[in-house]
Every structure is written in structure tokens, then in C-alpha cells.
């Protein structure tokens, strides 16, 4: 087929009007690259069809449409995913910041809670200690009470002698166990190298019943040595650790059974 026959076959009109299959299109394009006449005919037919349709839009429309066109590179088609991605990125950053802030808040809450727990534990320990000492002192008091209230006790009042006439002490002597307790609250404070010593007078002889200290706690009951068969008790001021025999000139208290 010569070129003129090809041109006049009608295939070029069909090509410009978009009526050909992909295969036929490829054929026309190959011909148009090979033969300048074919390309010229394509352009001629195209120009004719364009002129035939031609109607000028208002000139202002050009500017209006141009303002709607996005001239940034990689626009429109790829813009959508880009936009989406930047939206996602912004959202993720916001989420990350939000969650970080929340984490810090949580962490602070945990810290606060830990501090509160620590202070509660400390308080608990204090209460426990308090309770222990309370229950200990309660125990001591109960014990003292038990001693004082024991039905087999003999209570002996030791009265102040010339050295200290206003002094007074109570002595409890269990007739069964022979235990001796003394409750002293009004003897003068001795110097550091001296201690008061309790004596039991048994058949006219002074028997050592132990030394005791003056305690600040006036209610304190102190246990002394067990004594058998005493007719009287006396308190003297002796050297620290006690003496083997009482210093009669330093007798502070005495009471008969």
C-alpha cells in the first residue's frame, strides 16, 4: 500500500477521532514516525476537527481556571497520598506527644502513689512501734498491777526517817513466792557514785535485798531480791553496787511488817 492510499483509507480520521483499537493506533503511530506525510495528515485532520468545534471561552476563564491549577511538582495525582501521609504524620506526632504527656502524667502519678505508699508504710511502722511500746508499757503496767493486786501480797509502808522525813515508799512482799517489789517515788536523787539499798531485818540482822535506782517514772515498781522471814525493811544510801552491811547513819526509810 502506498502512502497516499494509506492516507485516503480513512484510518487517520478514525485515529484522530479515537475510533481505533490499541493495535491499529500503534500501526498509525509507527507510520507517522516513518512518513512525514502521515504525520502532516494527522495534524491537518486534527486541526480541521478542532476548528470545526471551536468556540472561544470568555477570556477571563483562563485566569479563573489557572488559579485552580496546582503547579507544584508531583502534584495532584501524587498529592493525595502526600497529603494523606502528612496528615497521618501530623496525627502520629500529635498522638505521640499526647501519649508521652500522658505517660509523664502516669509516671508522676506512680511516683506520687509510691511516695504516698512509702509515707503510709512509715506511718504504719511508727504505729507498730507505738503499739509495741504501748503494749509493752501496758504489759508492764498489767504486770505491776498483777503484783500490786496479788492477794498474797503484804503491803508494807516504808516511812521517812530523820534524813528525809517526807519520803515514803511502798513495799509489796508476796507471802507465797517471797518476791519483793518496791515502789519509790519520794527519795532525794543520790549522787552518781551512790545507790539506795534495801535491807530486810530478819531476826535482828540486816539482810541485803538489792540496790535500786531512782527512776524518773514515779509509778515504776522495782523487783528486789526474794526475802524470807523478815520482820522489817529499811533503805539506806550506800556506795554504788551496795554494801555488805547497812550504814546506819544513812538510813532513809523504814517500816515494820
Amino acid at each position, binding site marked *: 500500500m502506498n502512502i497516499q492510499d494509506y492516507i485516503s483509507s*480513512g484510518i487517520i480520521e478514525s*485515529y484522530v477521532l479515537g475510533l481505533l483499537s490499541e493495535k491499529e493506533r500503534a500501526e498509525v503511530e509507527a507510520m507517522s514516525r516513518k512518513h512525514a506525510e502521515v504525520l502532516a495528515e494527522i495534524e491537518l485532520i*486534527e486541526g480541521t476537527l478542532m476548528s*470545526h*468545534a471551536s468556540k*472561544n471561552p470568555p477570556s477571563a476563564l483562563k485566569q479563573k*481556571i489557572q488559579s485552580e491549577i*496546582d503547579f507544584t511538582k*508531583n502534584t495532584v495525582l501524587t498529592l493525595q497520598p502526600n497529603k494523606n501521609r502528612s496528615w497521618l504524620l501530623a496525627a502520629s506526632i500529635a498522638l505521640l506527644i499526647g501519649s508521652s504527656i500522658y505517660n509523664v502524667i502516669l509516671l508522676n502519678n506512680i511516683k506520687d502513689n509510691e511516695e504516698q505508699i512509702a509515707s503510709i508504710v512509715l506511718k504504719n511502722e511508727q504505729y507498730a512501734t507505738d503499739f509495741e511500746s504501748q503494749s509493752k508499757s501496758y504489759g508492764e503496767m498489767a504486770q505491776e498491777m498483777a503484783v500490786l493486786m496479788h492477794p498474797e501480797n503484804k503491803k508494807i509502808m516504808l516511812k521517812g526517817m530523820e534524813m528525809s522525813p517526807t519520803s515514803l515508799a511502798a513495799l509489796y512482799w508476796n507471802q507465797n513466792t517471797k518476791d519483793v517489789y518496791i515502789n519509790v517515788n519520794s527519795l532525794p536523787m543520790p549522787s552518781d557514785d551512790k545507790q539506795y539499798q534495801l535491807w530486810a531485818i530478819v531476826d535482828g540482822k540486816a539482810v541485803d535485798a538489792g540496790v535500786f535506782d531512782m527512776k524518773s517514772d514515779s509509778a515504776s515498781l522495782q523487783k528486789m531480791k526474794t526475802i524470807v522471814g523478815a520482820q522489817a525493811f529499811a533503805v539506806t544510801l550506800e556506795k554504788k553496787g551496795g554494801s555488805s552491811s547497812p550504814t546506819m547513819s544513812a538510813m532513809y526509810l523504814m517500816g515494820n511488817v
Partner: protein
Amino acid sequence: MKKNPFTEEELVSLLKNKDANAYNVLYDNYSSALYGIVSRIIPAEEIAQDLLQDVFIKIWKNIEKYDTSKGRLFTWMLNIARNSAIDYSRSKQFKLENKIHDIDNSVYEVNEQNIVSFNSDTIGIKEEVHKLKEEYRKLIDFIYFKGFTQEETSKELNIPLGTVKTRVRAAIIELRKKMN
């Protein structure tokens, strides 16, 4: 038609590169033809202008999808323009507006299939078209403006397919003569 400083391949390549100058060349060279095609389907000027804007935005958005294996750039854009206008003519909005226009003695009408038919006396198809033989005019209307295939045109005009093919060429040659 304004002077196009680029070959078609150069223009397409520049358009794909989002070149603003290439866009101007594209608009200057093709806007009248595309506007004419849209106007023949939707004669209402304001709507046709909106449609032309949509057409150029579509072209711009989809230029990356275009390559020469799809045919001429004009052919590709012609399809976009024609489809946009035909889609609009089938839309509810158009039908509603068309009803209103009917009441106002509209210059155009829609047939039973809602396909626009043209009233060449009132929508300004160029003078030379009037002088075309009636069969050529119909052929160009069906294939070029309505986007009918040759088979559809053959059925619609009740002429053999082979005759359609030869008459298209004859009609375009006739058009060319009238223009010169």
C-alpha cells in the same frame, strides 16, 4: 489556533513536569476546541464554563497517565471533555435545570434517553456545517460530538459500517474545504 512552539511530545513531556508555560500553551491551543465540544452537549454558557474548568483540572491531574500509545493528545482530551459534558447531561442536576429550561422555552432539548440532541439553528454551529450535506453533519455530530462508535452510528443512521468509514473521511475533507 495559536502557534504551538512545541512538538506534541515536547508539550506532553513538559506538562508531565508540571511546567506552567506548557500549561499556557495547552490552554491557548486547545481551550476553544474543548469549550466548543462541551458547549455542543451543554449549551448553557455558565455550566459549560464550569465544565471546561473541570476538564482542564482533569487533564492536569491525569496527564501522567497519558502517553502517545493512547493516541493524539487532542483525542485524549476530547474524550475527557465529551465524557464530562455527557456525564453532566445525565446528572440529576442537569435534568432538574433542564425542566426549568423547558418551561422557559429552552433552546435545547433532551430526548427519551436523556441524550442531548442539537438544535443547530440556535447553538451556533458554524456556518459551513449548515452547508455540509445533512448526512455528513449527522455523521460528525454522532461520532465527534456524541462520541458514538462507527458501529453505533451505522445503526443509528441506518447506513452500512463501511459507508460510515468512508463518509467520515469525506465529511472531514468537506469541512476542510469549507474552512479554506
